[in-house]
């Protein structure tokens, strides 16, 4: 069930009404309802993988309890590694087996050894990377004695499977979400309205901006050898907007939906394309994953404490792993490596925390220096996205090679209709105006009259109705 489908438009109101109706009964009933809804939501994709989700939940639930009850460090370690190995094992089989098998065959092929390794035809279970990371953060936190294990199976299952975040995050932490699940929720008018507003904005980003950009980005990337340099630049730019609006749109809908149910999820995006350097970009892009890698990989590796070499090594490790997390393809690994290279000057010169505030805070326009930094960072990001989007590393190099030709200054051969380009520009203006909020339209219109404010929201609805891409598409991050 997609967030941008009619099914979800029926599902959410039904769950919302039932959820607040049973609120008077008990918290337990409310959580059971949410769990059933979450499992139903997940089984709409493929009910067979529901068993995998339930197995993963059971595994982490029991290993969490066993770790806390372990009488020796060795036993605790044993349960911990059991959970980690099985969780990563599932991820490895479903997501990476074919990649490793093919890479081995290719590698030995270079040395003249022709191997026959059979690949398996597997469908990647939706959300496996996300719920595996949920579970891993939980067992790691218990192993490190940061949290106590959750003994209520319903509550724990809900933490793993809560439907707004189940298939594409935000990747939650037990310390943040579990206490909310265990606490009685009260309906809050302001939060519910805010949730609806964020859902509206997320929907606009997905179905208007991302899906319209996707149409042309797909066309250009799928036939990149037929397109001129300027078309390829346009394709890369369109993909840059597509991936941002697709994923942050999904996150907005997820966060807004959870807020309607009285639950606050972690923020996932904070206007990353207005970043002034790559370090700031990574503090603002897919925040829940970046912070996961920081807390569970970068810091355990030593973080930035061990001198320059350690910082450089650890930075490369987390970016390469982050790239690999996205998918079993060298394009993602190179994308991660490129980002590591881009961030390296700020790691070496320790300037990676120089842009912690919001750009041009309190001002309408950025300074010339800020604008230059934003454009430079954005350009580097676009360059990296070419690798992320390309089907192979070869294609990415072909695209980059074709961009820097005389064709670069010719009119693109394919382009969305002007009205769509105008809407993208309008969208970026709204994002800029609203960059001090949690999402762009959080605070826009708060001082206006209700009629004007409602007209603004209705205008967004009109844009959705008039300009949404009707062929529809999955969210990009479902494949991860």
């Amino acid at each position, binding site marked *: 069930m997609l967030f941008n489908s009619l099914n979800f438009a029926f599902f959410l109101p039904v769950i919302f009404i039932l959820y607040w109706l049973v609120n008077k009964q008990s918290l337990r009933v409310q959580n059971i309802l949410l769990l059933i809804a979450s499992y139903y939501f997940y089984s709409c994709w493929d009910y067979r993988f529901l068993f995998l989700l339930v197995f993963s939940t059971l595994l982490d639930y029991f290993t969490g309890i066993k770790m806390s009850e372990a009488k020796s460090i060795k036993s605790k370690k044993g349960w911990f590694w059991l959970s980690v190995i099985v969780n990563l094992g599932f991820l490895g089989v479903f997501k990476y087996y074919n990649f490793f098998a093919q890479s081995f065959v290719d590698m030995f092929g270079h040395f003249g050894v022709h191997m026959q390794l059979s690949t398996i035809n597997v469908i990647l279970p939706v959300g496996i990377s996300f719920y595996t990371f949920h579970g891993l953060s939980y067992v790691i936190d218990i192993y490190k004695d940061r949290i106590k294990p959750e003994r209520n199976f319903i509550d724990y299952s809900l933490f793993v499977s809560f439907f707004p975040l189940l298939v594409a995050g935000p990747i939650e932490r037990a310390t943040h979400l579990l206490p909310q699940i265990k606490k009685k929720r009260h309906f809050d*008018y302001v939060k519910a309205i805010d949730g*609806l507003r964020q859902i509206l904005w997320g929907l606009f980003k997905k179905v208007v901006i991302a899906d319209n950009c996707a149409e042309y980005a797909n066309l250009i990337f799928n036939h990149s050898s037929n397109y001129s340099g300027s078309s390829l630049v346009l394709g890369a730019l369109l993909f840059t907007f597509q991936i941002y609006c697709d994923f942050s749109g999904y996150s907005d809908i997820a966060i807004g939906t959870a807020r309607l149910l009285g639950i606050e999820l972690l923020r996932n995006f904070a206007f990353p394309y207005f970043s002034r350097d790559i370090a700031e970009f990574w503090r603002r892009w897919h925040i829940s994953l970046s912070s996961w890698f920081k807390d569970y990989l970068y810091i355990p590796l030593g973080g930035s404490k061990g001198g320059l070499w350690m910082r450089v090594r650890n930075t490369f490790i987390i970016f390469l792993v982050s790239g690999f997390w996205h998918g079993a393809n060298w394009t993602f690994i190179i994308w991660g490596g490129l980002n590591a290279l881009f961030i390296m000057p700020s790691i070496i010169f320790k300037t990676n925390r120089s842009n912690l505030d919001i750009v041009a805070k309190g001002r309408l326009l950025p300074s010339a220096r800020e604008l230059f930094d934003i454009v430079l960072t954005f350009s580097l990001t676009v360059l990296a996205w070419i690798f992320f989007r390309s089907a192979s590393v070869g294609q990415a190099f072909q695209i980059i090679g074709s961009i820097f030709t005389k064709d670069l200054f010719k009119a693109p051969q394919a382009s969305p*209709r002007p*009205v769509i380009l105008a809407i993208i520009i309008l969208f970026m203006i709204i994002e800029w105006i609203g960059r001090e909020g949690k999402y762009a339209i959080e605070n826009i219109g708060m001082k206006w009259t209700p009629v004007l404010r409602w007209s603004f929201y209705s205008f967004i609805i*009109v844009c959705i*109705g008039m300009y949404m891409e*009707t062929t529809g598409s999955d969210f990009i991050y479902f494949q991860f």
Partner: protein
Amino acid sequence: MKRFALRLCLFIVFASVFYTITILIFGIFMPASLAKNFDDFGGLGFTRRRMNDAAKIKGVDVIIVGSSHAYRGYDPRIFKKEGLSIFNLGSSSQSPLQTKYLVDKYVKNLKPKFVIIDIYPILFGVDGLESQIDLISSGLMDKDIVKMSFEMNNIRLYNSLIFGAFNNTFHLKKQKKTEIKGDTYIPGGYVQSYERFKFKKVRFTQKINISALQLGAFKKTLAELKSQNIKYIIVQAPFSKANYNSYTNNDEIDKMFAGLGEYYNFNKVLNLPDSMYYDDSHLNQFGVNVYNAKLIDTLKKSGVLNNVARLKPAGNMKNFQASNNK
């Protein structure tokens, strides 16, 4: 919670009014290029006029249903010379879903003795959206078309329905002049064109896919005709060789349709030059003259038109070929 529910209901009403007004503004004042999901063709290929005529006529020998191949491919004047009155219910990109709707709607009124179902197989694989919008923007707005639109579930249809409902009620806008240059409407639903094929569209080879939904609608139409004892034939009017040969599974398609009734594929019967087409998909008047003569001849020989009308004897192809040489 009550406050939330009340405010939400109020907002839904407000947004609905806002949305409707915007659709009306778009429909009346804005150029079509500004709206992506709002098509107000006003009926391409004279659909509105054809449907108005269909509502007035009572009783014909033959009706023809199908896509633009139908309304550009069967000239009532040629059939009339043979003693047959025909009415053409073709519409742009008409898929079997719309064919079923039109047969259900007009057969009672037109009381045909015989139906020629012109198929363009590629339209058995489409969602039927373009044709549905064409019908709505031609003024067709009834319970069945609304029901069909909801089943098809697409925002473009909903936008067209909103504008169509207001336009039909308040006559907000005159019919757009969207007809193609050189086209002339001929009473009986036919669109005549003497334009000749000027440039060749690049065609990539592709397989014709048949959607279960469209095939199901097609079979229901056949069953409906059978239940009313109306004879029918399934026909594939000729289109350019480049277009026809771009489909890789033509034989498979022929086999399928032959299993559904008496079927003629005139792409395999006639070998018309490009000069008899007005584009790579449609016959021009020169091609129609030849094709219609051959069709009538074939029907006479096969005897399927027995008891439909008092026909002239078969074998008068020469007259039409002579007129094409002028």
